[in-house]
Every structure is written in structure tokens, then in C-alpha cells.
């Protein structure tokens, strides 16, 4: 075989060997690289073969999408009965909120997205004004949801469904981060009173299960308040959830603070910066960046923990779902209900987790090369 002769440095790039690129190579390296992997691959394919067609059959092909009751669904198809979710969709979304006032929840949700955009995305146009709006948003949302000042008042016991989850989740997340930061700083403070109070607070709330706190909020507090002064149940729950999440948040952020080299604190001091200035400009930006995965982890945990409110009789999506199953028209459809609620929670939590990845990548300056 004759070979061309090239001058040094002029040899054209040869294509890579055929067994290292392309789909076949991918399969070989990723799925069939060793006997163990071959067995695992075969088992996985068999497992998927068993699961996927049956699931598709149940959820789509043999499912009933319309019908007035479970019996009508069953008469039409043997699979899932999505008519149940369809009929109850408003209940799942708005809870017991009066039907003619539901536009207020829709508007609040749109405004929430508008308020979140400048907070989460630093290249958002008009970001400065957006941030002002974000600061005003909690008050606007409170007014829209509760009414008063020209809107029909709505009691918080009519809150329910996904809307309740969002109210508790967003409030808890918004307030637990700043409180958590203060507690984490307080725990490292040189002032004994601040330190002892912070440690006491953190250890107390971390040492007690959330369910216990919710029970205290729903039942115990009432014994100590005169009957006339009703202190809104949802407000009590919001406070307890926020305090609980703050304690966890404080520990996550403390981890970030302790991961910073001592030199950063000393450098800040040697610049002559006062405590708050040095924290704001030097310590916290770095500590929070390190803590992002832990912070988002706490957020996701808090968001899912909101389902515990069912124990004290607040009807979140799971609560609405269980009550709906008690409707004699729709009994026995728990699979559909749980799947539907699971999809809602998955979308929310997956969104949060993706955003945290984006943030980590964006802020990964200096450490990754």
C-alpha cells in the first residue's frame, strides 16, 4: 500500500477511528462496556418494556377524558379516569376561593412572575424598576388575595389547592432567606447575647418536627388567646413554616460562611470596612455563592413540606384530592389524583433545581478552569 508523503506540519487531520464515534460507539462505551453493564442494560430494557407500554395504555390510550362520574369513565375505558381531574381542576387550583373572585388569584400569579423576573434574571430590561416592584409585590399580593380597600374580603380559610401551596411556599422562601442570613451571622457574632439567642432559636426550631410546630400553631396557641381574638390560622402556619425554614437556612449559610478562608475576613477588616459593609461587599456574596445548592435544597424541602398542613385541616392539593375522593361520584380514583399532584410538585421543584444549576454556572468565576 502506497502512502502519501507530507511535509512536517502539513499532515491533514484524519477522521477518528470508526469505533470511537457515532451511535454504535456510544452504545458500546456506555451500555455494553463490560459483562456487568451488558446485564444491567438488558435488565433495564426489559424493565422499560414492561413499564412504558402499560403506563401509556393506562394513562392515555385506554383512558377516559370525559364523563360525569367514575361509573361513566369505567363504562368508556379501563384505564385512567382524567375526567375526575378535569371536573375538579378549579378546586385543585383555587381551593374554596369564591368563583367570581378567582381572577384575583390569576392576576396575583401573573404579577408574581413579573416580580420574580428581575430578581432571578440580572439582565432583565428595566431591572431597577422591576426590583422596586418585587419589593412592593408582597403587599399587592396580600391585598389582592385577602381583599378589602375596594375588593370583596375573602377569608383565608377559603384558600386551598395549588394556590395555598404557592402562598405558603413563596412566603416561606421569601422570608426564610433573610432571616436565615441574620441568624447565621448572629451565630458567629462576637456579642454573647446575639450568639446565644441565635443558637437557641436555631437549635429549638431544628430540634422540633414541623408537624409539632403546626399542631402548636393550630391548637395550642388558641388556648392562650382569648376566644374573641381570632388570630388567623393561615398566618400562624406561615409564621411557623417560615421560622422552621429559617433555622435550616441559617445552618446552610453558616456552612458557606465557614468555608471562606479566614483571610477574607481579615482582608475586609484591614480595609477598614465596618461590619455590615464588609459582610455586604465581601463575605456574604462569596458565602451565599458557595451555599446555593444547600439553599435551593432547603427551598425544595420547604415547598414539599407544605403538604403537611393537611394534618391540621388546611386543604392543600393533596387535601383537596383526598376530600374529592370522598365524593361518592369519584371514589377509588386515588392513582389519578396522586399522579396529578405529583406532576405539579415535580414541575415546581424541578424548575427550582434547574434555576439553581443556572445560577451556579453563572457565578462559577475563578474556581473552575
Amino acid at each position, binding site marked *: 500500500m502506497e502512502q502519501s508523503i507530507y511535509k512536517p506540519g502539513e499532515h491533514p487531520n484524519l477522521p477518528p477511528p470508526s469505533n470511537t464515534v457515532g451511535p454504535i460507539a456510544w452504545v458500546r462505551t456506555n451500555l455494553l462496556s463490560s459483562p456487568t453493564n451488558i446485564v444491567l442494560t438488558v435488565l433495564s430494557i426489559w424493565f422499560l418494556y414492561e413499564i412504558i407500554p402499560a403506563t401509556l395504555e393506562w394513562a392515555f390510550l385506554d383512558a377516559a377524558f370525559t364523563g360525569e362520574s367514575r361509573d361513566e369513565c369505567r363504562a368508556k375505558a379501563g384505564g385512567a379516569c382524567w375526567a375526575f381531574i378535569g371536573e375538579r381542576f*378549579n378546586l385543585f387550583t383555587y381551593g374554596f376561593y369564591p368563583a367570581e373572585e378567582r381572577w384575583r388569584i390569576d392576576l396575583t400569579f401573573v404579577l408574581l412572575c413579573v416580580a420574580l423576573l428581575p430578581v432571578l434574571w440580572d439582565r432583565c430590561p428595566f431591572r431597577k424598576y422591576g426590583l422596586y416592584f418585587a419589593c412592593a409585590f408582597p403587599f399587592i399580593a396580600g391585598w389582592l388575595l385577602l381583599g378589602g380597600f375596594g375588593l370583596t374580603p375573602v377569608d383565608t380559610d377559603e384558600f386551598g389547592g395549588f394556590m395555598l401551596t404557592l402562598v405558603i411556599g413563596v412566603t416561606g422562601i421569601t422570608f426564610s432567606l433573610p432571616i436565615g442570613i441574620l441568624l447565621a451571622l448572629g451565630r458567629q457574632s462576637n456579642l454573647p447575647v446575639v450568639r446565644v439567642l441565635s443558637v437557641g432559636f436555631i437549635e429549638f426550631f431544628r430540634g422540633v418536627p414541623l408537624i409539632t410546630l403546626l399542631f402548636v400553631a393550630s391548637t395550642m396557641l388558641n388556648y392562650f388567646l*382569648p376566644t*374573641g381574638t381570632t388570630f388567623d390560622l393561615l398566618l400562624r402556619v406561615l409564621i411557623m413554616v417560615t421560622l422552621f425554614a429559617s433555622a435550616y437556612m441559617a445552618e446552610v449559610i453558616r456552612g458557606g460562611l465557614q468555608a471562606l478562608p479566614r483571610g477574607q475576613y481579615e482582608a475586609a477588616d484591614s480595609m477598614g470596612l465596618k461590619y455590615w459593609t464588609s459582610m455586604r461587599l465581601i463575605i456574604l456574596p462569596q458565602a451565599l455563592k458557595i451555599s446555593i445548592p444547600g439553599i435551593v435544597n432547603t427551598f425544595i424541602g420547604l415547598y414539599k413540606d407544605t403538604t403537611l398542613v393537611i*394534618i391540621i385541616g388546611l386543604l392543600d392539593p393533596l387535601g383537596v384530592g383526598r*376530600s374529592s375522593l370522598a365524593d361518592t361520584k369519584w371514589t377509588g380514583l386515588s392513582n389519578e389524583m396522586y399522579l396529578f399532584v405529583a406532576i405539579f410538585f415535580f414541575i415546581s421543584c424541578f424548575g427550582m433545581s434547574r434555576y439553581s444549576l443556572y445560577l451556579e454556572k453563572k457565578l462559577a468565576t475563578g474556581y473552575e478552569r
Partner: protein
Amino acid sequence: MFKSLKIGVITTLLSFAVFSANAATLDDVQARGELNCVVTTGLAGFAAPDENGRWDGFDVDFCRAVAAAVLGDGEKVKFVPSTGKTRFTLLNSGEGDILFRNTTETMSRDADLKLTFLPINYYDGQGFLIRKAYGVSSAKDLNGASVCIQTGTTTELNLADFFRANDMKYEPVNIETNEEGIANYSGNRCDAYTTDASGLASTRAALDDPSAHIILPEIISKEPLGGAVRHGDDQWADIGKWVVNAIINAEELGVSSANVGEMCASAGDNPSINRLCGTEGDAGSWIGLDNKWAVRVIEQIGNYGEIFERHIGPNTPLALERGLNAQWTDGGILYAAPIR
């Protein structure tokens, strides 16, 4: 010193709470214009929200009846959904005015938890659900069967007692919730499922082919279900008691939502009906209401038979027979004290 001060403060607060609970509930409710009624978060036929979020069911109708008597409008009820764990605290702490939550009346609840029970509105009891294919017609033939049973309930104890008393063996399959029970039973992991008969009816209705299952005739425990109010306000307890009695009496006397307008238009020949209608005597003033209180209840909610038929009777998916809950004149034990 500090400790005794703290105890003092707590005692004062507690006693304050107790005293404030003594205030007239009727006045509170009427001032508020709304009755706070503790119900379950969802039990088929007894209380559940419909697709518009409106609560509906057997227990719910009793809440509405009290509101109709006290406030004149059965829709003026705020439902306080409660779990088995929170129901009594919600009532005792004043967040609920009255409780209708498929609650069994027991001595400890009455005396120890400081509740006043209203007349029993549903006689329930523990039964068995089993596949027809087994050909079992009596619970006494269940020797050797595996039985799905909710742990930590009185039903567990009742089951053990029943099998021991009849010298039979069984294999318990422990479950936590009713949903789990349905799943285990329909998945053939137990031969029979045991819980309160009304619960069995809704479980049976939830199965894919309800007609392939039967509820055995034996009832092995007493579960008298009734409403309750907290101790300390006898007038309010009387109102609850007589609203329930009026609903039961109305059926016995043949007064229903369809004919109440006609029968109560003027005093008739039957003094019992006249007293119920308020056309004779002064029964309303005895409980702090006007004389048309019972008429409003029957007009808006109906009598006992109507409530039963609407939510749990033979034409509903629960398909419960009246059984013990028939009037005493029809072979049941529903026997309400007379209004006089």
C-alpha cells in the same frame, strides 16, 4: 420565684380561655352571622366538597340544619375541616362552634375531653366486607381468614375480641388508611376487610365491581355517631340537641321539606306536629330562638329520612339500608325525645 410566676401566668391564661369559652355561643354565632362547624376533611357520603367547593353530605346537612335554626339560613356555615387528631381541640379552643364529624360517642370523650354529645344521628358498627365468590354468608364462617385491619383503632380490638369469643383464628393484615385498605383488599392480599359498616359501604362502592362483594350481616361493635359541643354552654347544647331531635321527630310525624309549608301553615289536629311547627306552645323561646326554628330546618334541609336518602341511602353509591337507623316505629332504634 420565676418558675412560680410562669406557672401563674399560664394558669391565668388557661382559666381565661376556659371562662371565655363559657360565653354564650348563641350570641357569638348570631353576632358573627356564621356558624363554624367542624367536619371531616372528607368521608364519602358524610362530608365532602363538590366540584365547586360546596360541602355536601350527611354530617354537613346537620351543620346546615343548626345554621337554619339559629341564623335562619342553612348556607351561613363556615366548614372547619378537621382530622381525627384535631377535631376536639378545634371545638374546645373555640374555632368551631359545633362538631358533626362521624364521631363515636364514648365515655372518655364525653367526660374526659369535656364534650357534650348531641343525640345520636347515626348508629354505626363494625362489619366485614368479603367477596361473594367465597360463598360466606356469616362472619361466624370466617375461621382462618386473613383480615385487613386499620392499626391503632378500636376496630383492631373489636376484631380480636370477636374472633376470640367465637373461638376462631384469623390472620391480620395491618394497614394504615382506608385507601390502603381498598388497595390491599382489591389486590387480594386479604380475604376480608373490616371497619365501620358505613365505611365498608363506601369502600365497596369504590371497588371495580361492587356487586361482586357483600357486607356480612354481623355487626361486632357499637359505634353511635353524633354531634358534639364543648362543655360549659348548656343553652347551646340544648339548641344542638333539639335541632337533631326535631329532624328525627319530623320524619316520625310525616313532616318533610315537601309538605312542611302546608302542614305548618296553621295549627292542625295533631298537637305534636303543632308544637314542632311552632303553631302551638312556645318551644322556641325555651332554647332562645323563635318558634319557627324547626320549620326552617325542615324547609331548608328536610327530615331525617330525606337527609339519609340524599347522601347514604339505597339510591346512592353507598347504598346503606336504614337498619338500626330506621324509626322505632319501623323496627329501628331511632327514638327522639318529644318536643313538648
